[in-house]
């Protein structure tokens, strides 16, 4: 008899585990926010009381709005409970040549996209206006500290596209509460002592420290870098990427605001350093700052000095009182995320430096992918697994190439780190080919070939032209499309002015949301 996957066990209770649990439960066991008596899945999350979650990963993409809405959490509750703020993109400082240069990769698409590629029509004006400012209002408005919406904008709706900055620990708690109290997810706190197999080599059960066996049809490994099920037990090979992306270490610190009403930045700040870069994320009550670096290029002490210098420059005079936390990781991913009856989601599937905050996004993408396969007869598991493995290999490849692009375009020369990044031996050949093409034409949708893509052509445009990349081969500019583009440029300039007058500041809006909530429609 062909059994259908019904029992699902998720191992690990960080953000990845709880997000996955909530997405699966909301998709299959609820209707219109109400728990069904006839839910299709039986979901249990097993979390070890002995293992602390990492609790970094404080930036999301706009997809998180859809995810939160899908699992039925109100946006005001999320913002209030998770110390969350709005993220409208990433701002890259000193990446170009360490000369005080700065550009923004905003979440909003350029005007006209995806139907009309406006980029070639901007090329003739590149001396007058940056690409991001010519085609979109978001860079300018977020630089001015303005929120992406108003208090009367319905929850999860936007005026300018946004994701969030959040407190990962608080987010995990909120998801846990919601998953267990509203979505009917079973929660077991137990340390996993052993894993048993079926004769076919599938996972049969996980055995807890006190000897209980927890069986399931499908096991989801959210155990973090330990990768207990996929990596350790099923021995799926790990594909290291350190030769492309050197960073393998981070030092993280939480920094209080100097004034309680200090402005909250609307972009993740990413400031390039002699070795690596520093993230700076503004939540409601504090900042989260961290130095990402390559242990092959500098030791922990040098990295710490870079971080302290950055903090001092940003106004923290006494950095001795701060608690620094060192993290190490092996950049790379497992060759397959789905093996037999086990899917790994989150760091259990792989981890790459957080330069474009793709970690939580991959969790959402993965959980939604698995959810879309269900209900799944056991006989078809291998087909779904093969398809997911192919899709996520492409995602990893794209993330790696897209992150590498940031380094390859840099003209910094203050450390071997940057020279090494530009060595062609470390640049994936697909990226090398694209870079040659892009000298003659702007990136277009055809350059990004797989479906459900993480970074659309627009992202490549924002990074390339933010970094001052030269596309020399001017394309034919058709007069009617030129007119259309100029219309869009003018409209955008007008929109910047109008919105600058109409949008509240980030902190002002967040305070209001705490007070009034957000209208549901």
């Amino acid at each position, binding site marked *: 008899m062909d059994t259908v996957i019904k029992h699902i066990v998720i191992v690990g209770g960080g953000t990845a585990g709880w997000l996955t649990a909530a997405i699966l439960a909301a998709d299959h066991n609820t209707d219109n926010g109400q728990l069904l008596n006839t839910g299709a899945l039986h979901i249990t999350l097993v979390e070890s009381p002995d293992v602390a979650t990492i609790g970094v990963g404080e930036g999301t993409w706009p997809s998180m709005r859809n995810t939160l809405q899908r699992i039925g959490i109100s946006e005001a509750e999320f913002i209030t409970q998770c110390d969350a703020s709005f993220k409208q993109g990433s701002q890259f400082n000193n990446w170009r040549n360490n000369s005080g240069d700065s550009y923004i990769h905003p979440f909003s698409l350029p005007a006209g996209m995806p139907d009309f590629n406006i980029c070639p029509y901007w090329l003739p004006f590149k001396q007058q206006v940056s690409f991001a400012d010519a085609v979109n209002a978001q860079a300018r408005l977020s630089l001015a500290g303005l929120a992406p919406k*108003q*208090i*009367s*904008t319905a929850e999860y709706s936007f005026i300018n596209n946004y994701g969030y900055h959040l407190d990962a620990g608080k987010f995990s708690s909120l998801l846990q509460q919601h998953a267990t109290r509203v979505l009917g997810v079973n929660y077991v706190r137990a340390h996993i002592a052993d894993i048993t197999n079926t004769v076919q080599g599938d996972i049969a059960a996980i055995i807890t420290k006190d000897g209980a066996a927890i069986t399931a049809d499908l096991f989801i490994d959210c155990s973090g870098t330990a990768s207990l099920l996929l990596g350790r037990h099923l021995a799926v090979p790990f594909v290291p990427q350190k030769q492309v992306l050197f960073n393998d270490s981070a030092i993280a610190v939480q920094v209080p605001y100097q004034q309680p009403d200090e402005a909250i930045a609307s972009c993740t700040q990413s400031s390039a350093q002699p070795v690596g870069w520093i993230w700076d994320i503004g939540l409601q009550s504090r900042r989260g700052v961290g130095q990402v670096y390559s242990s092959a290029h500098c030791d922990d002490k040098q990295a710490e000095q870079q971080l302290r210098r950055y903090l001092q420059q940003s106004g923290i005079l006494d950095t001795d009182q701060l608690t620094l936390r060192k993290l190490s990781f092996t950049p790379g991913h497992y060759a397959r995320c789905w093996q037999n009856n086990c899917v790994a989601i989150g760091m259990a599937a792989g981890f790459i430096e957080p330069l474009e905050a793709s970690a939580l996004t991959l969790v959402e993408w993965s959980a939604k992918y698995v959810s879309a396969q269900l209900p799944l007869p056991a006989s078809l598991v291998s087909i779904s697994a093969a398809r997911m493995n192919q899709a996520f290999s492409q995602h990893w490849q794209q993330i790696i190439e897209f992150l590498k692009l940031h380094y390859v375009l840099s003209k910094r020369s203050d450390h071997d780190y940057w020279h090494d990044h530009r060595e062609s031996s470390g640049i994936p050949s697909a990226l090398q080919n694209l870079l040659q093409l892009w000298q003659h034409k702007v990136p277009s949708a055809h350059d990004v070939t797989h479906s459900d893509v993480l970074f659309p052509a627009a992202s490549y445009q924002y990074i390339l032209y933010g970094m001052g990349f030269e596309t020399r081969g001017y394309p034919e500019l058709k007069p009617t499309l030129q007119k259309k583009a100029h219309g869009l440029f003018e409209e955008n300039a007008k929109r910047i002015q109008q919105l600058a007058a109409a949008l509240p500041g980030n902190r002002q809006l967040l305070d*209001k949301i705490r*007070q*009034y*909530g*957000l*209208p*549901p*429609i």
Partner: protein
Amino acid sequence: MSKHVLLNSVEHLDLKVITARGAEFGDNVWFTPTFPLEFRSVQAHYPIFFHKDAATGQFFSVAVFGFTHHENLFLHDDNWRGYYVPLTLRRQPFLIGKQVVREDGTEQTQSVIHLDLDSPRVSKAQGEALFLPLGGSSPYLDEVSSMLKTIHLGLQDNAAFVALLLEHKLLESFTLDIQLDDGSKHQMIGFYTINEDTLAALPTDVLGQLHAKGYLQAIYMLIASQANVRTLLKLKNQLNASAAA
């Protein structure tokens, strides 16, 4: 601008308030907040919709007087066309304030009357007196006081009403497309009304809950009030015709 002060019988003994209607007194408003306690009177003349307060994002019930900013089609020759004037307009230039007082050692919040001294309605020469010459409040001020109390309770009740409507997904946004006699087309956006499909499909226990609070009646008065859009159209067409003549 406005200058709100706590009303008192010493400083404000000689003040009067002009109660005539007119654009010069700030009556040229597109809409004004109302609440279920007042719906019966309001729905006889004006469409009642919902609108979000720009400062808080909260939904208010509003009586609508026109199709655009500063358009009140019921103001005519500086007079209101004889109809019921909603309380939130009639209360001008008074508003309710909060004062913390200490009574028997505990702090309590008390409702008090505030006055906008910068309102064009405030006068020393004409209008209704606030206080009697020998002290004590005038019948007019007593009326104001009870009006403010009604508004205060009414808006609280409206908040509970809206919360229930939202809980049961009974609100929906709509776009009002109108065509005037001169052929011009206009669109009114930013308002919300009752979703009648959801209403029709409500389970009886929810209907019972709405009925027990008097909100079922309020909902049907809201729906019936939509017919008054015709009145607005008629007034707008008349206005355009007389302007053209």
